[in-house]
């Protein structure tokens, strides 16, 4: 016997966070991971109800969810590779030409911050170059 609402609320919070990530983030991979997080919330609900009713149906539904998620992951991966090959970007905003008629295009106004990258570290030469002794034995 478990307390049902606690698990349901953890599932709801996971689902809500995943929803926020899916709606707001623009990297396709992050969006996909957020969708998977929503699925985790759903699985948690199924398992909690299954335990609450003492019935295996919840676990079996969760098993099928995992199967579908695996299919989805494989397909999404292939699509992301194809998209990246075409546009050299994983930004979902690149595809806004596919939006509906009469919806204005979103324009990014703020300039991106520029990060000054440190150059690779170089060791300063110090001392004299050691003289290499001729190897005595040669094989």
């Amino acid at each position, binding site marked *: *016997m*478990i*307390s*049902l609402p*606690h*698990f349901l*609320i*953890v599932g*709801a*919070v*996971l689902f*809500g*966070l*995943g*929803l*926020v990530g899916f*709606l*707001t*983030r*623009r*990297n*396709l*991979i992050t969006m996909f*991971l957020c969708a*998977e*997080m929503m699925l*985790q919330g759903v*699985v*948690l609900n199924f398992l909690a109800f*299954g335990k609450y009713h*003492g019935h*295996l149906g919840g*676990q079996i539904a*969760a*098993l*099928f969810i*995992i*199967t*579908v998620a*695996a*299919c989805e*992951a*494989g*397909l999404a*991966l*292939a699509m*992301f*590779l194809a998209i*990246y*090959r075409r546009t050299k*970007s994983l*930004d*979902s*905003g690149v595809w806004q030409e596919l939006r509906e008629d009469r919806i204005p295009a*979103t324009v990014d106004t*703020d*300039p*991106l911050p520029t*990060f000054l*990258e440190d150059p690779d570290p170089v060791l300063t030469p110090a001392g004299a170059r050691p003289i290499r002794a001729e190897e005595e034995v040669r094989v």
Partner: protein
Amino acid sequence: MIPPFASLEIDPIAAGQIVAAVVMGTLGLYFLLPRPRGRSIALGTFLSLGTAGMIAGFLITTFGQPFPNLVENALFWLFAAGAVGFGRVLVMQSNPARGAISFAFVILSSCGLFLMLAAPFLMAATIIIYMGAIVVTFLFVLMLSQAKGASDENDRSREPLLGSLAGFAFMGLILFTLYVTGPRVETRADAAIVEPLLPATGIRTADKLLLVAAANDLDLALDPDAKPDEMLMQAKQARTRLLRVVGSAGEPLDANPGRTIQDRLRNSETDVRIASIVAQADKVRVLKKTSLDRLETALLDREPKLDEAREQLKRLRGEVLILAGRGELPAKNVKAIGYALYSEHLIAVELAGTLLLVATIGAVAIAQKKGSVA
């Protein structure tokens, strides 16, 4: 019958907690989401911690602690905090590789919760499939496509305020629904009116404790060193305990309404599982009477012949334990899942296999380069 909206009036404290959680969560995630201007990690983290505290406070004041003992409670809160905390990192992290790593930790934490929900097979499967396969392949894709410096996809968000409002409004609605329908810790004066609207479970915790205690009494009675009067005393104690759960064989079933298992479940006997619980409870009720009678007659003899009575008590103990375990998931998780999959859900298994095949073919077809010969 409870009218559907009988308990819609909400306690001001609970309402305040829900609203505060929604508002603080929305603002917190708004400040955390990546964008060129106006991002504040410190403020966002502070607000997110406040949200987590609000939700935990709402849970504890409304529903109490999730488990009866400290260790399980500590584990639950640890795993829940881990899942939610790493989920927040996944949503706000502008580096997608770090996001993928934190998603792996979300999976790990929620697998801890799976284990607490008696699903060890799913825990292992999820860890293997998600952490071992999905997250690692996505890290590969990230390696292939990582851009240097700031980029549109990682350092901008689409409508951060409205997006986070959508997610947290959804969460607030679920909190509210559970508040209205869930089994609350009752602190209100008119508590008698409000009943949990969730469907009844077969065996309540109190019943289960009584049944296990009765089985313990019978264990003591079956002790080979026990003297006959001790045996009778223990058996009678077990009988008083069982009386409170399954009722007495002599009296009609509705003698004490709402107390016995059979009476509580009488209206939902169409459910196969509930019917099996009721049948088992009836079995225990009858067996209790016959075995106690047998024991008493055996003890009244000049030379007590206890063997047969002992057999009966042993049978009664077995049935009591079976009744206590009805309404629980089977202990052999993998075996039971396999049996159910291939007996009740065979078509679904076949369909899932077909789906996997189609997805594989589709992935190969999509991923191959144009013009190359597959």
